[in-house]
């Protein structure tokens, strides 16, 4: 095994691997370069996760900054019990809930862009866009916690146990939230189909 001068990356059998845990250790030592790298790696996914949970684009930057500031301050508390990504998304989840609570916000169904504004057409891409818009509207009817489970499962690809770690709840609670989310999505999408 060869360790580079920074000690951040290791090679096994000649291959180089980005070691996020080691990166986080350097963040704990207040190395700004390591923090910037971690930020750049997580920025796109955290941004989408927070945006999908809050459905308030104007808040995203602030919640994202709050999340990464907690990562910066609490990096020394990371204990390797979970993956680094699970640890960071758990912080993002808590910060997003805090932001929602702070603003006492219950995002409304009507706040999302009206799907009817998109002109229908034969183009497949446009149909896909419409379909996504319907789903997006339907997701808007779910609670932030239910949307988090959908997002963590289908976009970020986490296992049920990992989602339970991120949400800090029992596995059965995750399954329950997913069950209700699926049921509600079906009802809303069916109603939408009937309305068309």
């Amino acid at each position, binding site marked *: 095994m060869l360790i580079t001068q920074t000690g951040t990356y290791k090679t096994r059998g000649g291959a180089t691997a980005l070691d996020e845990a080691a990166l986080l250790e350097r963040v704990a030592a207040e190395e700004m370069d390591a923090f910037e790298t971690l930020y750049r790696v997580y920025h796109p996914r955290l941004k989408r996760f927070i945006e999908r949970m809050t459905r308030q684009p104007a808040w995203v930057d602030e919640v994202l900054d709050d999340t*990464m500031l907690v990562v910066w301050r609490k990096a020394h508390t990371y204990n390797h019990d979970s993956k680094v990504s699970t640890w960071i998304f758990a912080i993002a989840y808590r910060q997003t809930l805090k932001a929602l609570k702070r603003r006492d916000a219950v995002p409304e169904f009507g706040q999302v862009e009206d799907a009817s504004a998109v002109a229908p057409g034969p183009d497949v891409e446009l149909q896909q866009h419409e379909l996504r818009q319907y789903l997006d509207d339907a997701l808007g009817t779910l609670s932030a916690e239910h949307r988090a489970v959908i997002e963590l499962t289908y976009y970020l690809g986490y296992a049920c146990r990992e989602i339970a770690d991120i949400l800090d709840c029992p596995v059965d609670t995750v399954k329950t939230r997913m069950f209700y989310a699926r049921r509600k999505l079906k009802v809303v999408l069916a109603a939408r189909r009937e309305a068309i």
Partner: protein
Amino acid sequence: MNGRVLPFEGSAHVEADRLLPWLVNGTLCDEERGLVEQHLVDCAQCQREVEWLRALQAQAACDDKTTDAADTHQAVQRLRRRIDAERVGRRVEVRPAGWRRWGRRPWVKGVIAAQAAIILMLGIALIHDSRTAAAYRTLGAAAVPDTRLVVVFDPHLSEAQMRRLLRASDARIVDGPTDAGVYVLSVPSTQTKAVREALRAAPGVSLVEGLDSDRER
């Protein structure tokens, strides 16, 4: 939100149904996957549910918005300013009280001077050591033939697009993706800067950083 937790012990159908979302995203353990797949063979309802969940996953995974590098750079700078301000604030808060208390003791100046001298000597020794020590390399390693770059592609960049980008940059994937979707690329040392700039400017690339910053900067 309904806080009631449903009990999931019960019929094989109910248990399989609750696990379907994670069958679809491919994260069930072998034992659970075996049970669910066995149930699926005879359950038309669950088969339909899997189809609907796959469609849901395909739609949910779509990402209309891509985060460009400039957006990320701006965000990093914004947070960096916040952290720097916090650090300065911390120094301002800590220094007066601590400094005044210790500054009154006459022997403190002597101790500080001695410490400074020791730190200076250690520093000189360290610089000398780093100049003379050979870099640690494996026996088969070639003499710095390439440079490693850490790259994050947009999650929805197609394989063909990624291949085109890598070919145009004369880069090879040497590791990844990690859990966070990070790849490590090997590029010829002579072209590092140009490749890094080209990748940063390319659509579908979220992050490009040097792995051995000392070598490629």
